[in-house]
Protein backbone atom coordinates (compact mmCIF):
# COMPACT_ATOMS: atom_id res chain seq x y z
CA UNK A 1 0.00 0.00 0.00
CA UNK A 2 2.69 2.48 1.08
CA UNK A 3 4.61 1.52 -2.01
CA UNK A 4 1.65 2.41 -4.21
CA UNK A 5 1.29 5.81 -2.48
CA UNK A 6 5.01 6.45 -2.93
CA UNK A 7 4.76 5.64 -6.61
CA UNK A 8 1.77 7.97 -6.97
CA UNK A 9 3.69 10.74 -5.18
CA UNK A 10 6.62 10.18 -7.53
CA UNK A 11 4.37 10.44 -10.54
CA UNK A 12 2.84 13.68 -9.18
CA UNK A 13 6.32 15.13 -8.61
CA UNK A 14 7.37 14.22 -12.15
CA UNK A 15 4.17 15.81 -13.53
CA UNK A 16 4.82 19.01 -11.52
CA UNK A 17 8.44 19.06 -12.67
CA UNK A 18 7.32 18.63 -16.26
CA UNK A 19 4.93 21.56 -15.91
CA UNK A 20 7.62 23.86 -14.46
CA UNK A 21 10.31 22.57 -16.80
CA UNK A 22 11.54 25.55 -18.84
CA UNK A 23 11.15 25.08 -22.57
CA UNK A 24 12.80 28.42 -23.25
CA UNK A 25 15.56 30.11 -21.25
CA UNK A 26 17.15 33.42 -22.18
CA UNK A 27 20.21 34.25 -20.09
CA UNK A 28 22.22 37.46 -19.96
CA UNK A 29 21.23 38.53 -23.46
CA UNK A 30 22.89 41.59 -25.00
CA UNK A 31 22.08 43.01 -28.40
CA UNK A 32 22.96 46.39 -29.86
CA UNK A 33 22.80 48.05 -33.26
CA UNK A 34 25.77 50.42 -33.50
CA UNK A 35 25.65 52.62 -30.41
CA UNK A 36 22.00 51.77 -29.73
CA UNK A 37 21.94 49.18 -26.94
CA UNK A 38 18.62 47.37 -27.35
CA UNK A 39 18.91 44.46 -24.91
CA UNK A 40 21.09 44.70 -21.82
CA UNK A 41 21.52 41.59 -19.67
CA UNK A 42 17.99 40.39 -20.44
CA UNK A 43 16.77 37.17 -18.80
CA UNK A 44 13.61 35.19 -19.39
CA UNK A 45 12.19 31.78 -18.58
CA UNK A 46 9.18 30.16 -20.24
CA UNK A 47 7.78 27.02 -18.64
CA UNK A 48 5.92 24.21 -20.38
CA UNK A 49 2.29 25.04 -21.00
CA UNK A 50 2.73 28.66 -19.91
CA UNK A 51 1.77 31.90 -21.67
CA UNK A 52 4.28 34.67 -20.98
CA UNK A 53 3.72 38.18 -22.30
CA UNK A 54 6.65 40.51 -22.83
CA UNK A 55 5.22 43.98 -22.43
CA UNK A 56 7.07 47.06 -23.57
CA UNK A 57 6.80 50.36 -25.39
CA UNK A 58 7.32 50.59 -29.16
CA UNK A 59 11.01 50.42 -29.97
CA UNK A 60 11.90 48.85 -26.62
CA UNK A 61 13.44 45.79 -28.29
CA UNK A 62 10.57 43.28 -28.00
CA UNK A 63 10.76 42.20 -31.65
CA UNK A 64 14.56 42.09 -31.47
CA UNK A 65 14.25 39.69 -28.52
CA UNK A 66 11.85 37.36 -30.35
CA UNK A 67 14.01 37.43 -33.51
CA UNK A 68 17.08 36.49 -31.42
CA UNK A 69 15.12 33.55 -29.97
CA UNK A 70 14.18 32.20 -33.40
CA UNK A 71 17.72 32.79 -34.71
CA UNK A 72 16.91 35.53 -37.20
CA UNK A 73 19.26 37.86 -35.30
CA UNK A 74 22.48 36.88 -33.60
CA UNK A 75 22.88 38.27 -30.08
CA UNK A 76 26.11 40.03 -29.10
CA UNK A 77 26.32 38.04 -25.87
CA UNK A 78 24.23 35.61 -23.86
CA UNK A 79 22.56 32.26 -24.25
CA UNK A 80 19.16 31.22 -25.59
CA UNK A 81 18.15 27.66 -24.76
CA UNK A 82 15.15 26.34 -26.66
CA UNK A 83 14.05 22.85 -25.61
CA UNK A 84 17.50 22.34 -24.12
CA UNK A 85 19.48 23.46 -27.19
CA UNK A 86 21.48 26.70 -27.29
CA UNK A 87 20.21 28.52 -30.39
CA UNK A 88 23.28 30.78 -30.54
CA UNK A 89 25.69 27.87 -31.10
CA UNK A 90 23.75 26.01 -33.80
CA UNK A 91 24.71 25.46 -37.41
CA UNK A 92 22.07 26.41 -39.95
CA UNK A 93 20.87 22.79 -40.39
CA UNK A 94 20.58 22.09 -36.65
CA UNK A 95 18.90 25.49 -36.20
CA UNK A 96 16.29 24.43 -38.77
CA UNK A 97 15.54 21.32 -36.67
CA UNK A 98 14.93 23.52 -33.63
CA UNK A 99 12.85 25.95 -35.69
CA UNK A 100 10.58 23.07 -36.73
CA UNK A 101 9.51 22.84 -33.07
CA UNK A 102 8.81 26.57 -32.78
CA UNK A 103 5.92 28.41 -34.36
CA UNK A 104 6.36 32.09 -35.17
CA UNK A 105 3.43 34.39 -35.83
CA UNK A 106 4.78 37.50 -37.53
CA UNK A 107 3.41 40.94 -36.82
CA UNK A 108 2.70 41.46 -40.53
CA UNK A 109 1.47 37.82 -40.90
CA UNK A 110 4.12 37.28 -43.61
CA UNK A 111 1.82 35.20 -45.83
CA UNK A 112 3.37 34.51 -49.22
CA UNK A 113 1.44 36.70 -51.66
CA UNK A 114 2.18 34.52 -54.67
CA UNK A 115 0.79 31.35 -53.05
CA UNK A 116 -2.74 30.21 -52.21
CA UNK A 117 -3.74 29.56 -48.59
CA UNK A 118 -3.16 25.83 -49.17
CA UNK A 119 0.35 26.44 -50.57
CA UNK A 120 1.14 28.80 -47.70
CA UNK A 121 0.28 26.07 -45.21
CA UNK A 122 2.07 23.32 -47.14
CA UNK A 123 5.26 25.39 -47.41
CA UNK A 124 6.67 24.70 -43.88
CA UNK A 125 5.82 20.99 -44.23
CA UNK A 126 7.71 20.68 -47.50
CA UNK A 127 10.64 22.82 -46.38
CA UNK A 128 11.23 20.98 -43.13
CA UNK A 129 11.44 17.70 -45.12
CA UNK A 130 8.37 16.36 -43.39
CA UNK A 131 7.48 13.55 -45.73
CA UNK A 132 3.78 12.95 -45.85
CA UNK A 133 1.69 11.53 -48.62
CA UNK A 134 -0.65 14.01 -50.36
CA UNK A 135 -3.67 12.76 -48.39
CA UNK A 136 -1.89 13.30 -45.07
CA UNK A 137 -0.71 16.76 -46.13
CA UNK A 138 -4.23 17.63 -47.19
CA UNK A 139 -5.58 16.39 -43.87
CA UNK A 140 -3.02 18.44 -41.91
CA UNK A 141 -3.87 21.56 -43.92
CA UNK A 142 -7.60 21.01 -43.44
CA UNK A 143 -7.16 20.43 -39.72
CA UNK A 144 -5.03 23.57 -39.25
CA UNK A 145 -7.63 25.59 -41.13
CA UNK A 146 -10.48 24.08 -39.13
CA UNK A 147 -8.60 25.00 -35.93
CA UNK A 148 -8.80 28.65 -36.93
CA UNK A 149 -12.31 28.31 -38.40
CA UNK A 150 -11.37 29.12 -42.00
CA UNK A 151 -11.61 25.81 -43.84
CA UNK A 152 -13.42 27.43 -46.78
CA UNK A 153 -10.49 29.74 -47.64
CA UNK A 154 -8.20 26.90 -48.71
CA UNK A 155 -7.98 27.88 -52.38
CA UNK A 156 -8.08 31.64 -51.87
CA UNK A 157 -5.13 34.03 -52.29
CA UNK A 158 -3.96 36.08 -49.27
CA UNK A 159 -4.96 39.29 -51.05
CA UNK A 160 -8.62 38.15 -51.00
CA UNK A 161 -8.68 37.88 -47.20
CA UNK A 162 -9.42 40.49 -44.53
CA UNK A 163 -6.82 41.49 -41.91
CA UNK A 164 -8.32 39.22 -39.25
CA UNK A 165 -8.57 36.27 -41.67
CA UNK A 166 -4.95 36.74 -42.72
CA UNK A 167 -3.93 36.66 -39.06
CA UNK A 168 -5.86 33.41 -38.58
CA UNK A 169 -4.30 31.85 -41.67
CA UNK A 170 -0.85 32.88 -40.42
CA UNK A 171 -1.73 31.21 -37.13
CA UNK A 172 -2.84 28.08 -38.99
CA UNK A 173 0.52 28.04 -40.82
CA UNK A 174 2.24 28.34 -37.44
CA UNK A 175 0.20 25.40 -36.09
CA UNK A 176 0.70 23.01 -38.97
CA UNK A 177 4.04 21.72 -37.66
CA UNK A 178 2.47 21.10 -34.22
CA UNK A 179 5.04 23.30 -32.46
CA UNK A 180 5.89 22.98 -28.78
CA UNK A 181 6.49 26.70 -28.44
CA UNK A 182 4.69 29.52 -30.25
CA UNK A 183 6.19 33.00 -30.49
CA UNK A 184 3.63 35.72 -31.16
CA UNK A 185 4.93 39.07 -32.39
CA UNK A 186 2.24 41.69 -31.66
CA UNK A 187 -0.65 39.36 -32.56
CA UNK A 188 -3.38 42.00 -32.25
CA UNK A 189 -1.62 44.97 -33.83
CA UNK A 190 -3.57 46.48 -36.71
CA UNK A 191 -6.80 44.65 -35.84
CA UNK A 192 -10.03 46.18 -34.55
CA UNK A 193 -10.78 45.43 -30.85
CA UNK A 194 -13.39 42.72 -31.65
CA UNK A 195 -11.15 40.84 -34.08
CA UNK A 196 -8.25 41.33 -31.68
CA UNK A 197 -10.25 39.62 -28.92
CA UNK A 198 -11.15 36.76 -31.30
CA UNK A 199 -7.46 36.22 -32.03
CA UNK A 200 -6.63 36.23 -28.30
CA UNK A 201 -9.38 33.65 -27.62
CA UNK A 202 -7.99 31.56 -30.45
CA UNK A 203 -4.50 31.74 -28.93
CA UNK A 204 -5.87 30.56 -25.57
CA UNK A 205 -7.85 27.78 -27.28
CA UNK A 206 -4.72 26.60 -29.12
CA UNK A 207 -2.73 26.58 -25.90
CA UNK A 208 -5.39 24.45 -24.19
CA UNK A 209 -5.87 22.09 -27.15
CA UNK A 210 -2.21 21.43 -27.98
CA UNK A 211 -0.61 22.26 -24.59
CA UNK A 212 1.82 24.67 -26.25
CA UNK A 213 3.95 27.23 -24.45
CA UNK A 214 3.68 30.75 -25.79
CA UNK A 215 5.81 33.85 -25.68
CA UNK A 216 3.69 36.82 -26.65
CA UNK A 217 5.17 40.18 -27.53
CA UNK A 218 2.57 42.87 -27.11
CA UNK A 219 1.66 46.32 -25.90
CA UNK A 220 -2.08 45.64 -26.15
CA UNK A 221 -3.38 45.53 -22.55
CA UNK A 222 -6.43 43.50 -23.61
CA UNK A 223 -4.13 40.82 -24.93
CA UNK A 224 -1.99 41.00 -21.79
CA UNK A 225 -5.01 40.72 -19.47
CA UNK A 226 -6.66 37.83 -21.30
CA UNK A 227 -3.71 35.74 -22.43
CA UNK A 228 -0.91 36.18 -19.87
CA UNK A 229 -0.11 33.68 -17.14
CA UNK A 230 2.92 35.83 -16.39
CA UNK A 231 4.06 39.25 -17.60
CA UNK A 232 7.59 40.55 -18.11
CA UNK A 233 7.98 44.30 -18.54
CA UNK A 234 10.84 45.11 -20.90
CA UNK A 235 12.16 48.58 -20.19
CA UNK A 236 15.44 50.15 -21.27
CA UNK A 237 16.62 46.78 -22.56
CA UNK A 238 16.16 45.02 -19.23
CA UNK A 239 13.56 42.91 -17.50
CA UNK A 240 12.17 45.71 -15.33
CA UNK A 241 9.33 43.89 -13.58
CA UNK A 242 7.77 40.43 -13.59
CA UNK A 243 4.56 38.98 -12.22
CA UNK A 244 0.97 38.12 -13.01
CA UNK A 245 -1.52 40.71 -14.23
CA UNK A 246 -3.07 41.51 -10.84
CA UNK A 247 0.28 41.81 -9.05
CA UNK A 248 1.70 44.20 -11.61
CA UNK A 249 -1.54 46.20 -11.82
CA UNK A 250 -1.29 46.94 -8.09
CA UNK A 251 2.42 47.80 -8.30
CA UNK A 252 3.28 51.30 -7.02
CA UNK A 253 6.28 51.85 -9.33
CA UNK A 254 5.55 54.76 -11.70
CA UNK A 255 7.18 53.01 -14.66
CA UNK A 256 4.99 49.93 -14.16
CA UNK A 257 1.82 51.98 -13.51
CA UNK A 258 2.13 53.73 -16.90
CA UNK A 259 1.38 50.44 -18.68
CA UNK A 260 -1.79 49.82 -16.69
CA UNK A 261 -3.28 53.31 -16.69
Amino acid at each position, binding site marked *: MSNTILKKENIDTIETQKKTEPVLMVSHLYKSFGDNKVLIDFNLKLNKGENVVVLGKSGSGKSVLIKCIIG*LLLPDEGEIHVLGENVVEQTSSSLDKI*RAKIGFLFQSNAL*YDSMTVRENLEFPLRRHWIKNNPDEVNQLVQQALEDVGLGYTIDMMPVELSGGMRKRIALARTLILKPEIILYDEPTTGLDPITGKEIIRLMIHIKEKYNTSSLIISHDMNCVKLAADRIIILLEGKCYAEGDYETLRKDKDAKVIQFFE
Partner: protein
Amino acid sequence: MPVSTSTKNLLNEVGGISSFAGRFFSQWYKPRYEIAEFFRQCYVIGYKSLPLVGLTGFIMGLVLTMQLRPTMVDYGVESQIPAIVGIAIIREIGPVLTALIFAGKIGSSIGAELGSMKVTEQIDAMEVSGTNPFKYLVVSRVLAATCMLPVLTVMSDAISLYGSYLGVNIRGTTSFSLFWIQVFESLDFYDVIPAFIKTYFFGFAVGLIGCYKGYFSSKGTEGVGRSANSAVVVSSILIFIIDLLAVQITDVLGYN
Protein backbone atom coordinates in the same frame (compact mmCIF):
# COMPACT_ATOMS: atom_id res chain seq x y z
CA MET B 1 42.37 63.47 -48.79
CA PRO B 2 38.65 63.97 -48.08
CA VAL B 3 36.28 61.67 -49.96
CA SER B 4 32.88 63.07 -50.96
CA THR B 5 29.67 61.42 -49.77
CA SER B 6 28.64 60.46 -53.31
CA THR B 7 32.00 58.71 -53.85
CA LYS B 8 31.56 56.86 -50.55
CA ASN B 9 28.01 55.83 -51.58
CA LEU B 10 29.25 54.64 -54.96
CA LEU B 11 32.03 52.60 -53.36
CA ASN B 12 29.57 51.18 -50.82
CA GLU B 13 27.24 50.18 -53.64
CA VAL B 14 30.05 48.53 -55.64
CA GLY B 15 31.23 46.73 -52.49
CA GLY B 16 27.70 45.59 -51.64
CA ILE B 17 27.03 44.25 -55.16
CA SER B 18 30.44 42.49 -55.25
CA SER B 19 29.84 40.84 -51.89
CA PHE B 20 26.32 39.80 -53.00
CA ALA B 21 27.78 38.30 -56.18
CA GLY B 22 30.40 36.50 -54.07
CA ARG B 23 27.63 35.05 -51.91
CA PHE B 24 25.85 33.87 -55.07
CA PHE B 25 28.96 32.10 -56.40
CA SER B 26 29.62 30.46 -53.03
CA GLN B 27 26.08 29.09 -52.77
CA TRP B 28 24.64 28.34 -56.20
CA TYR B 29 26.22 24.90 -56.62
CA LYS B 30 25.57 23.62 -53.10
CA PRO B 31 22.51 21.54 -52.20
CA ARG B 32 19.63 21.96 -51.48
CA TYR B 33 18.82 22.68 -55.15
CA GLU B 34 15.71 24.74 -55.73
CA ILE B 35 14.92 23.10 -59.08
CA ALA B 36 11.14 23.61 -59.02
CA GLU B 37 11.55 27.29 -58.17
CA PHE B 38 14.21 27.66 -60.89
CA PHE B 39 11.83 26.30 -63.57
CA ARG B 40 8.98 28.43 -62.22
CA GLN B 41 11.22 31.48 -62.54
CA CYS B 42 12.29 30.44 -66.06
CA TYR B 43 8.60 30.44 -66.97
CA VAL B 44 7.92 33.80 -65.31
CA ILE B 45 11.12 35.50 -66.48
CA GLY B 46 11.43 33.92 -69.92
CA TYR B 47 8.06 32.93 -71.29
CA LYS B 48 6.16 35.89 -69.91
CA SER B 49 8.72 38.37 -71.32
CA LEU B 50 8.48 36.95 -74.82
CA PRO B 51 5.54 39.08 -76.10
CA LEU B 52 7.21 42.35 -75.04
CA VAL B 53 10.65 41.36 -76.31
CA GLY B 54 9.13 40.05 -79.57
CA LEU B 55 7.11 43.20 -80.19
CA THR B 56 10.00 45.59 -79.53
CA GLY B 57 12.31 43.41 -81.62
CA PHE B 58 9.88 43.44 -84.54
CA ILE B 59 9.46 47.23 -84.42
CA MET B 60 13.23 47.70 -84.09
CA GLY B 61 13.95 45.60 -87.20
CA LEU B 62 11.24 47.35 -89.21
CA VAL B 63 12.22 50.89 -88.19
CA LEU B 64 15.95 50.31 -88.60
CA THR B 65 15.39 49.08 -92.17
CA MET B 66 13.10 51.98 -93.07
CA GLN B 67 15.53 54.56 -91.61
CA LEU B 68 18.49 52.98 -93.37
CA ARG B 69 16.86 52.69 -96.77
CA PRO B 70 17.09 56.35 -98.06
CA THR B 71 20.84 56.57 -97.37
CA MET B 72 21.47 53.15 -98.90
CA VAL B 73 19.48 54.19 -102.00
CA ASP B 74 21.56 57.40 -102.26
CA TYR B 75 24.77 55.35 -102.28
CA GLY B 76 23.26 52.81 -104.66
CA VAL B 77 23.73 49.88 -102.29
CA GLU B 78 20.08 49.19 -101.55
CA SER B 79 20.65 45.49 -102.08
CA GLN B 80 22.99 45.42 -99.07
CA ILE B 81 20.23 46.36 -96.61
CA PRO B 82 19.57 42.77 -95.39
CA ALA B 83 23.29 42.19 -94.81
CA ILE B 84 23.84 45.45 -92.92
CA VAL B 85 20.68 45.11 -90.82
CA GLY B 86 21.54 41.47 -90.10
CA ILE B 87 25.01 42.35 -88.81
CA ALA B 88 23.72 45.30 -86.77
CA ILE B 89 20.94 43.27 -85.16
CA ILE B 90 22.91 40.11 -84.43
CA ARG B 91 26.11 41.75 -83.22
CA GLU B 92 24.88 44.70 -81.25
CA ILE B 93 21.34 46.05 -81.38
CA GLY B 94 19.52 42.76 -80.70
CA PRO B 95 21.46 41.73 -77.57
CA VAL B 96 21.65 45.24 -76.07
CA LEU B 97 18.07 46.28 -76.78
CA THR B 98 16.67 42.94 -75.57
CA ALA B 99 18.78 43.24 -72.41
CA LEU B 100 17.52 46.79 -71.79
CA ILE B 101 13.88 45.74 -72.25
CA PHE B 102 14.60 42.75 -70.00
CA ALA B 103 16.12 45.05 -67.35
CA GLY B 104 13.03 47.28 -67.48
CA LYS B 105 10.58 44.41 -67.14
CA ILE B 106 12.38 41.75 -65.10
CA GLY B 107 14.88 43.83 -63.12
CA SER B 108 12.12 46.07 -61.79
CA SER B 109 9.74 43.19 -61.09
CA ILE B 110 12.40 41.19 -59.18
CA GLY B 111 13.39 44.33 -57.23
CA ALA B 112 9.78 45.12 -56.33
CA GLU B 113 8.84 41.51 -55.52
CA LEU B 114 11.78 40.84 -53.23
CA GLY B 115 11.51 44.34 -51.76
CA SER B 116 7.88 43.83 -50.78
CA MET B 117 8.71 40.36 -49.43
CA LYS B 118 11.43 41.94 -47.33
CA VAL B 119 9.29 44.70 -45.82
CA THR B 120 6.38 42.33 -45.09
CA GLU B 121 8.71 39.84 -43.33
CA GLN B 122 8.07 37.08 -45.91
CA ILE B 123 11.83 36.52 -46.28
CA ASP B 124 12.14 36.06 -42.50
CA ALA B 125 9.14 33.69 -42.59
CA MET B 126 10.93 31.58 -45.21
CA GLU B 127 14.02 31.36 -43.05
CA VAL B 128 11.93 30.30 -40.07
CA SER B 129 10.28 27.64 -42.29
CA GLY B 130 13.62 25.90 -42.84
CA THR B 131 14.38 27.58 -46.16
CA ASN B 132 17.55 29.36 -47.16
CA PRO B 133 15.89 32.46 -48.66
CA PHE B 134 19.05 33.40 -50.55
CA LYS B 135 19.00 30.11 -52.45
CA TYR B 136 15.24 29.96 -52.86
CA LEU B 137 14.75 33.56 -53.97
CA VAL B 138 18.09 34.89 -55.24
CA VAL B 139 19.95 31.91 -56.74
CA SER B 140 16.87 30.65 -58.61
CA ARG B 141 16.09 34.11 -60.06
CA VAL B 142 19.68 34.96 -61.03
CA LEU B 143 20.15 31.56 -62.75
CA ALA B 144 16.79 31.87 -64.51
CA ALA B 145 17.61 35.38 -65.75
CA THR B 146 21.07 34.22 -66.90
CA CYS B 147 19.61 31.27 -68.83
CA MET B 148 16.55 33.03 -70.26
CA LEU B 149 18.05 36.23 -71.69
CA PRO B 150 20.15 34.42 -74.35
CA VAL B 151 17.04 32.48 -75.44
CA LEU B 152 14.98 35.68 -75.59
CA THR B 153 17.76 37.42 -77.54
CA VAL B 154 17.84 34.68 -80.20
CA MET B 155 14.06 34.93 -80.54
CA SER B 156 14.15 38.71 -80.59
CA ASP B 157 16.89 38.68 -83.28
CA ALA B 158 14.80 36.35 -85.44
CA ILE B 159 11.66 38.46 -85.02
CA SER B 160 13.67 41.66 -85.73
CA LEU B 161 14.90 40.17 -88.98
CA TYR B 162 11.31 39.32 -89.93
CA GLY B 163 10.49 42.97 -89.21
CA SER B 164 13.39 43.99 -91.40
CA TYR B 165 12.15 41.74 -94.21
CA LEU B 166 8.80 43.52 -94.02
CA GLY B 167 10.61 46.89 -94.04
CA VAL B 168 12.59 45.96 -97.15
CA ASN B 169 9.39 44.95 -98.93
CA ILE B 170 7.43 48.09 -98.13
CA ARG B 171 9.25 50.03 -100.87
CA GLY B 172 10.92 47.23 -102.77
CA THR B 173 10.62 43.59 -103.65
CA THR B 174 12.99 41.10 -102.16
CA SER B 175 12.01 37.46 -101.95
CA PHE B 176 11.89 35.76 -98.58
CA SER B 177 14.65 33.31 -99.44
CA LEU B 178 16.91 35.96 -100.98
CA PHE B 179 16.55 38.13 -97.88
CA TRP B 180 17.65 35.30 -95.56
CA ILE B 181 20.46 34.20 -97.88
CA GLN B 182 21.83 37.77 -97.84
CA VAL B 183 21.52 37.94 -94.04
CA PHE B 184 23.29 34.64 -93.39
CA GLU B 185 25.99 35.20 -96.03
CA SER B 186 26.98 38.43 -94.31
CA LEU B 187 27.26 36.76 -90.91
CA ASP B 188 30.28 34.96 -89.61
CA PHE B 189 30.85 32.60 -86.69
CA TYR B 190 32.65 35.47 -84.92
CA ASP B 191 29.60 37.72 -85.29
CA VAL B 192 27.21 35.31 -83.66
CA ILE B 193 29.13 33.63 -80.83
CA PRO B 194 30.60 36.64 -78.93
CA ALA B 195 27.22 38.41 -79.20
CA PHE B 196 25.48 35.32 -77.86
CA ILE B 197 27.96 34.83 -75.01
CA LYS B 198 27.65 38.41 -73.76
CA THR B 199 23.89 37.97 -73.31
CA TYR B 200 24.61 35.50 -70.47
CA PHE B 201 26.50 38.28 -68.69
CA PHE B 202 23.67 40.74 -69.36
CA GLY B 203 21.13 38.28 -67.91
CA PHE B 204 23.31 37.63 -64.89
CA ALA B 205 23.70 41.38 -64.27
CA VAL B 206 19.94 42.04 -64.51
CA GLY B 207 19.06 39.14 -62.21
CA LEU B 208 21.77 39.94 -59.68
CA ILE B 209 21.04 43.67 -59.47
CA GLY B 210 17.26 43.11 -59.24
CA CYS B 211 17.77 40.63 -56.40
CA TYR B 212 20.36 42.82 -54.63
CA LYS B 213 18.12 45.87 -54.69
CA GLY B 214 15.06 43.94 -53.53
CA TYR B 215 16.84 41.84 -50.91
CA PHE B 216 18.24 44.92 -49.18
CA SER B 217 15.14 47.03 -49.58
CA SER B 218 14.19 49.11 -46.54
CA LYS B 219 12.00 52.00 -45.42
CA GLY B 220 8.62 50.39 -46.19
CA THR B 221 6.67 50.79 -49.41
CA GLU B 222 8.70 53.85 -50.45
CA GLY B 223 11.81 51.67 -50.29
CA VAL B 224 10.16 49.05 -52.53
CA GLY B 225 9.53 51.66 -55.25
CA ARG B 226 13.09 52.90 -54.92
CA SER B 227 14.46 49.34 -55.17
CA ALA B 228 12.52 48.67 -58.38
CA ASN B 229 13.65 51.95 -59.87
CA SER B 230 17.33 51.65 -59.00
CA ALA B 231 17.35 47.99 -60.14
CA VAL B 232 16.51 49.21 -63.66
CA VAL B 233 18.95 52.13 -63.61
CA VAL B 234 21.93 50.17 -62.25
CA SER B 235 21.38 47.10 -64.43
CA SER B 236 20.98 49.27 -67.56
CA ILE B 237 24.30 50.98 -66.80
CA LEU B 238 25.92 47.61 -66.18
CA ILE B 239 24.63 46.31 -69.52
CA PHE B 240 26.46 49.14 -71.32
CA ILE B 241 29.62 48.59 -69.28
CA ILE B 242 29.59 44.83 -70.02
CA ASP B 243 28.95 45.61 -73.70
CA LEU B 244 31.90 47.97 -73.78
CA LEU B 245 34.15 45.36 -72.16
CA ALA B 246 32.86 42.64 -74.52
CA VAL B 247 33.72 44.77 -77.56
CA GLN B 248 37.22 45.43 -76.20
CA ILE B 249 37.77 41.73 -75.49
CA THR B 250 36.57 40.57 -78.92
CA ASP B 251 38.74 43.30 -80.47
CA VAL B 252 41.83 42.14 -78.60
CA LEU B 253 41.09 38.53 -79.56
CA GLY B 254 40.77 39.60 -83.19
CA TYR B 255 37.10 38.67 -83.60
CA ASN B 256 36.01 42.12 -84.83
